[in-house]
């Protein structure tokens, strides 16, 4: 067998379209998923109650079932319940819910390790629980768990390959599509593998860049 990458050239548009879908799904999921995780972590950090229990159930169900089943449940299950949902929306929703649950747990570890004195100082200054969470607890908590957070976002980006199973035109869908036309499996999947690798590296670098700005206080300091 000889390698011939020129066989991919007619399919550049498909690869590009798949890449764009994968990237925007990942970026949107990262932002919305982390926002969701912050809300979940805040509620679960508070007094036990119905909201806290419901969110706890959401986190446990999500973390203990396969992503592809969650995706199928949303895409095939919701219409059966009379809620029409497009493949793209189902994909985005599944990814956001997935990242939200894992990140909420990661973030909770960071919140739990907040020094008692920080809470006391905030209380002595008159901050409410929400104010204290927002201004005192959140940023240091994120900084403590940031490496795990980056890994989790990369896992979700790579896991997004699964959305090709409900015919969302992502990078993996593009690869399957091209391979079924030109039968050049090796070339197609090699290229797509490299693209995923670059995306993962790029995502990590982006996170680290943001982290250096956001957590500037950790540089050259002992605390």
């Amino acid at each position, binding site marked *: 067998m000889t390698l011939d990458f020129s066989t991919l050239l007619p399919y550049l548009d498909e690869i590009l379209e798949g890449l764009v879908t994968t990237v925007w799904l990942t970026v949107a999921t990262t932002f919305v998923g982390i926002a969701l995780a912050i809300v979940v972590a805040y509620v679960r950090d508070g007094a036990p109650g119905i909201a806290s229990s419901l969110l706890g159930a959401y986190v446990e169900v999500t973390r203990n079932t396969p992503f592809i089943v969650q995706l199928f449940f949303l895409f095939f299950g919701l219409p059966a319940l009379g809620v029409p949902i497009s493949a793209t929306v189902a994909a985005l929703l599944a990814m956001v819910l997935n990242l939200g649950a894992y990140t909420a747990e990661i973030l909770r570890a960071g919140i739990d390790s907040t020094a008692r004195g*920080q809470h006391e*100082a905030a209380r*002595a200054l008159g901050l409410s629980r929400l104010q204290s969470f927002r201004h005192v607890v959140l940023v240091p908590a994120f900084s403590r768990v940031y490496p795990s957070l980056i890994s989790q976002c990369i896992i979700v980006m790579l896991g997004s390959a699964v959305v090709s199973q409900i015919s969302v035109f992502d990078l993996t869908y593009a690869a399957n599509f091209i391979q079924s036309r030109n039968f050049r499996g090796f070339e197609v999947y090699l290229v797509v593998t490299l693209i995923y690798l670059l995306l993962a590296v790029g995502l990590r670098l982006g996170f680290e860049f943001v982290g250096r700005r956001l957590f500037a*206080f*950790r540089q050259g300091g002992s*605390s």
Partner: protein
Amino acid sequence: MALVVVNDLHKSFGDLEVLKGIDLEIEAGEVVSIIGRSGSGKSTFLRCLNQLEHHDWGTIHLADQRLDGGAMSPGELSQNVGMVFQSFNLFPHKTVIENVMLAPVVVKQTPRAEARQVAEQMLDKVGMLEKIDAYPGQLSGGQQQRVAIARALAMQPKVLLCDEVTSALDPELVGEVLHVLESLAAEGMTLILVTHEMKFARDVSHRVVFMHHGHIHEAGDPQTLFTQPKTSELSQFIASIL
């Protein structure tokens, strides 16, 4: 009428009764040092005064207003009683000026420009104006504690509580913090300090309160108290620390 009036304060942690009925009146502008062995209840007493601990029985009034039992919101409390901690507890992700401005802006809803002005004033008072943009991790313990004092003062409280504020400091840094407290006292700030700095208690405070087993065992002006203790517990305590 005294500024702070504490009546029959009781506090237990489970079966352990830590405060067994504290009565104390403190005048505006008075500097009161609370001394005693660890476990005597002095820190718990201080923490009841700004409701970081909720006592089981008794009342606390500040300027004729009930302070305890939910009578004041946390926001109101922080504008009446400020607190400085042994371990500074500055917010590590905020610069010096942000630490000082946070509560005025968020709790008091002071406009940022005005809050910044007040913060600069307070930082000037503690000699930390030139470190305004530093993060706490870049400061020495003494500098951090001085910022913590400025942060408490920025809420313009009527009373400042100091809970062993020099205990976590290297010996050579204790002086700069005590110096700040001394100048606050000279300005007429009402200070209530739990302290192990006996020299400071003797030289700066107007009154020294000796706590023992959850009671105020002996109290009086520092000269008399340190030189002519009335009770054997106090003379033993003084002997053990000098």
